[in-house]
């Protein structure tokens, strides 16, 4: 990081100038060296903004009517790309709520209506600082970085301590969580409901869940702690043209579900797509996130830039 050294240079320059001219140039010089940046995000289904309780028609391969009940995801390693193509990392504000080290949570659900899994608080920005520069583009990763993903969740700080984003079975987190009721898979069992004990059909009434996370994490050796996941499932998203002052990153559920059948569920598989390599319900959904699935590479369709 060059922040502290450039800060020191700035301070020195400020002092020299101040001694010579007695003008108050210190503050502008600092701002130039360490510039606050806000990256704005939005959640939509096609061209309609997402909101808890709203239903959307014509989604996926079967033109299904879907009602999302959660819409959250982690991004990490957010960087601005300068004119030479160099990615300069945003130093994220450490607010002890939405951002921790290099990871930030974006949260579009407000726990109203069918959204029972999340929190009332919402978040549609990533905030941080970058050194002054001539920036043209944006790069970020969808997901939690490896070291944080596999750390001890029982003592993790916010925003890595939300139990609905835990994925302990994979020794990690759900990088993205979007849950849906669809025409073919109504979601009449919701977390928070109290259905009758012993209802065996309940697992067929969980709707269509989209949970993105790393899988096959004992790939190196079943006798060691996770050191490598065969499927990290952390797509890197890059936009060559992005101006934080004017542009918004739109996460489009309609686009990522293009060609996906959300009305049926493969037998003996989790409800919807939980990143399971042998789950046909993840096809072509995982590819639409820009990932390789079933040996076939994909092009990300989830994010787009809106001016």
């Amino acid at each position, binding site marked *: 990081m060059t922040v502290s050294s450039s800060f020191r240079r700035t301070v020195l320059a400020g002092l020299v100038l101040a001694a010579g001219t007695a003008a108050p140039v210190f503050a502008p010089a600092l701002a130039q060296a360490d510039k606050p940046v806000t990256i704005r995000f939005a959640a939509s289904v096609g061209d309609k903004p997402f909101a808890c309780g709203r239903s959307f028609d014509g989604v996926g391969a079967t033109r299904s009517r879907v009602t999302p009940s959660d819409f959250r995801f982690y991004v990490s390693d957010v960087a601005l790309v300068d004119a030479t193509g160099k990615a300069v990392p945003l130093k994220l504000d450490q607010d002890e709520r939405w951002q921790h080290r290099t990871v930030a949570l974006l949260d579009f659900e407000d726990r109203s209506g069918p959204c029972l899994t999340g929190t009332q608080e919402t978040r549609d920005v990533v905030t941080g600082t970058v050194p002054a520069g001539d920036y043209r583009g944006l790069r970020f990763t969808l997901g939690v970085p490896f070291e944080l993903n596999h750390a001890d969740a029982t003592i993790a700080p916010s925003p890595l301590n939300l139990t609905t984003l835990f994925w302990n079975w994979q020794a990690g987190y759900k990088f993205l969580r979007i849950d849906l009721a669809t025409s073919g898979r109504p979601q009449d069992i919701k977390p928070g409901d109290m259905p009758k004990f012993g209802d065996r059909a309940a697992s067929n009434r969980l709707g269509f869940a989209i949970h993105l996370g790393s899988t096959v994490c004992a790939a190196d050796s079943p006798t060691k702690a996770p050191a490598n996941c065969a499927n990290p499932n952390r797509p890197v998203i890059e936009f060559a043209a992005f101006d934080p002052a004017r542009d918004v990153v739109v996460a489009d559920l309609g686009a990522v579900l293009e060609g996906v059948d959300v009305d049926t569920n493969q037998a003996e*598989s989790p409800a919807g797509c939980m990143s399971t390599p042998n789950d046909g319900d993840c096809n072509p959904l995982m590819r639409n996130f820009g990932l390789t699935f079933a040996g076939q590479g994909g092009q990300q369709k989830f994010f787009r830039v809106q001016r």
Partner: protein
Amino acid sequence: MPRVRFRAFALALLWTCSAAAQGTGGYRWPLPGWLPPPLVPDDNPQTDARVDLGRHLFYDKRLSLDGTMACATCHEQARAFTDGRARPTGITGQQHPRNAQSLANVGYWPVLTWANPLLRHLERQALLPLFGESPVEMGMAGHEQALFARLAADPAYPERFRRAFPERDGAIDLATITRALAAFQRTLISADSPYDRYRYGGREDALSPAAKRGEALFFSERLECFHCHGGVHLTDSLVHARKPFAEYAFHNTGLYDRDGKGAYPADNTGLLEHSGRADDMGRFRTPSLRNVELTAPYMHDGSIATLEEVIAHYEAGGRARGPNTSPFLPGFRLSAEEKQDLVAFLKSLTDRDFVGDPRFADPWKTAP
């Protein structure tokens, strides 16, 4: 006289050494001398106060969203901490794909659950039944603050948390709840069956002649049972305080062959799910056979109802052999009497004191 004193001193010394070996913080494990204590993680030192708190939590239905399930719902002491069902259902009625495992000696397993090598610590494993969503078990995902508030509001808890976690000022949170649950589970040690009294206690009469004949069959190259169900807890997965090298293994026991290539049901592929290797299809961790009489039904999905049927399964070398089926399933023929002997041996692994031990019982039924 001097000789007697020397012997007394030697005994005292032995006891001291043994106490020192039995863990830090002066915790005394409920163990026979021949069994080393379980391994305890550095960040969760074993204390009586933690065990006591963990026991209260283990039996507390308020750990589930609708107050219908405690850990003990699927892990009943009378059944050696299993539940008698093939596959349990959680609070929403969703069925778990796998059978609830016995918690007897769970502190000795280097990896927990049936086939997930990522789950090595009871502290983190506790998050799964509490907060897991695929399947939903206790259904607390997103309700952790409500859980902390429930516990804080019960006079039985705040002082117990303070005693168990003085360094955290008795904080009621994910770290303390999961650590207390782990501390209690590590005390669930079963090592006083008739077979133990015979094998380690030197009591010839503790085992019936039939059970002794069954033991010989069990440990024979003819049946090959012991290759996987060997060692002090009759499993090839073991770690403890005097065993620096954790051993564990996963085996395919020929239960399914969906496609002629050894495929298991898609929601129960075993180790393959986490390793990604095709030859790990259907491989599951060897369960201990301690108290096996009480832990029916059997196998990772509870698909075999009785010990006699399990023996028939192995007699056939697996009901659906596939390319990954363990070579230690050669198949064999047993006479009717030999089968009875083998069952007699398996039943000699039942530890009646363990399933009746008041230290492991529901503390809420007595004074809190």
